C-alpha cells in the first residue's frame, strides 16, 4: 500500500474518533512503526493547512486530534444560530394532550393510549419545556412520570391544569361504560 492510502486511513480514524488518538494506537492500526506514522501525520498536517480545507490536525502530547480551523467559527455559529424549525406536529400535539389530561403519566401509559412508541415525542416536548419529569412511579422499574410545565400553562394562557377545558364528558362516559359492563356481569338470579 502506498503512502497515500495510509493518509486516508488516518484521516478516517481521526474523523470518526473526534477526540485525540495516541500515536501508538494509530501506528498499530495501520501496521507501521511510530516513527513512520509520525512522519505521515506530519505531512498530513502540512497539507491540511491549505486554506481550501476547513479542518486541521493538531498534536496534543503525543496524540492527534482533528478539529475545525478557528477561522470557521463564525460560520459554525451561524449554523448553530439558525433557528431550528420547531413545529408542534400531530404526534406532538396528541402526546401533549394525553400528558395534559392524564398527568402524571408514564411513557408506557401514553404508548398504550396511542398504540405506538412515544419516546421521541416525549423527548421533544421535554426539550420544548412543555412537559417535564414529575418523579418516578412507585412500581416495578420505577418508570418516570411526566406532566406539563409552567411554561405549558403560560403558553396556553391558563393558571393551573385544573383550568384545562373540562374533560369530564369523556371521563364520565368512560366511567359509565365501565359501570355498565360491571352491572351486566352481575348475576341476577
Amino acid at each position: 500500500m502506498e503512502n497515500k492510502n495510509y493518509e486516508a486511513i488516518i484521516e478516517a480514524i481521526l474523523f470518526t474518533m473526534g477526540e485525540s488518538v495516541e500515536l501508538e494506537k494509530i501506528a498499530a492500526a495501520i501496521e507501521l512503526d511510530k516513527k513512520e506514522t509520525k512522519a505521515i501525520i506530519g505531512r498530513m498536517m502540512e497539507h491540511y493547512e491549505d486554506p481550501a480545507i476547513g479542518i486541521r490536525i493538531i498534536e496534543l502530547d503525543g496524540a492527534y486530534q482533528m478539529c475545525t480551523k478557528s477561522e470557521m467559527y463564525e460560520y459554525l455559529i451561524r449554523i448553530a444560530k439558525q433557528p431550528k424549525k420547531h413545529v408542534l406536529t400531530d404526534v406532538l400535539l396528541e402526546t401533549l394532550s394525553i400528558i395534559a389530561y392524564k398527568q402524571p403519566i408514564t411513557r408506557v401509559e401514553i404508548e398504550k393510549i396511542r398504540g405506538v412508541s412515544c419516546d421521541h415525542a416525549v423527548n421533544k416536548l421535554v426539550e420544548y419545556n412543555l412537559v417535564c419529569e414529575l418523579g418516578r412511579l412507585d412500581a416495578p422499574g420505577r418508570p418516570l412520570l411526566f406532566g406539563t410545565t409552567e411554561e405549558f400553562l403560560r403558553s396556553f394562557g391558563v393558571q393551573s391544569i385544573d383550568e384545562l377545558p373540562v374533560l369530564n364528558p369523556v371521563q364520565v362516559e368512560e366511567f359509565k361504560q365501565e359501570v355498565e359492563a360491571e352491572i351486566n356481569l352481575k348475576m341476577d338470579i
Partner: protein
Amino acid sequence: MDMTVRLQVFEGPLDLLLHLLEKNKVNIYDIPIVEITAQYLEYIAEMKRQDLNVVSEFLVMAATLIDIKSRMLLPAKEEDAEEEEDPRAELVQQLLEYKMYKCMAYELRDLQIDAERVLFKEPTIPPEIADYEEPVDLAELVSDVTLAKLNDIFKSIMKKQADKVDPVRSKFGKIEKEEVSLSERMSYLEEYCLTHSRFSFRNLLEAQTGKMEIIVTFLAVLELMKVGKIFISQEKTFDDIQIQSRIAA
C-alpha cells in the same frame, strides 16, 4: 419433536404457504390446491396442539384454501369457462406480493451489511459555539394551538380508544384454563342429590365461592334437569327455587 422447531419459523400463513410451494417444488401460478390444502391443514393441526393463539392467524388462510379447493372441484360451465377467473388468482396475487417484499427484505439486509461498514462522528461542537443556544420560542411554537384544540385532540384519541375496545369482550380478560368444569360440577351435584332429596337453589348458589363456580353450578343444574336427574319447582316469581332429587339413594 422437530415439528415444533419448524413451525416457529413461519411468520404467518403466507410464509407457511410459500414454504409448502417450495417444498413441493411447484409453480406459484399453478398451485396444486388439493395437495397444498391437505398439507397446510396438517401443519395447522399440529400447531393447534401447541398454541391456539398463533393458529388463529393461520385458520383464515385454511378457510380460503378450502374455499378455493371446493370451487376448483366444481365443474365449470362450458360456455363461461373462458372468462371465468381462476379461483386461485387472488391468492396468487397475494402470495406474489408477499414474496416480493420478502425478497426485498433480503436486499435490505445486504444493503445494511454494507452500510454498517461506514462510521460516523459524534458532534464535536467547540464550546464557544455549543454554549450558544437558540431559545425555543414557545409563543411561536404554540401559536394557533388553543386549549380547545388540545381538548378536541384528546377527546378524539380517547374516542378512538373506546372504539378499539369491544365493551363486552374487553371485560373477558385472559382466557384461562377453566378451573371448574361442568362435568365435575355435575357429579358433585349428583352426589349431593344422593344425600339430599330436596334443597334450595339459592342456598346452593350461595355456597359457591366464585363467579365462575356459580355459573358452572347453574349450568350443571340445567343439565341435570334436562336429563331428568333433578326436578325443580318455584311457587311464585322471584321465590326461591326448590330442587328435588330424582336419584334414588
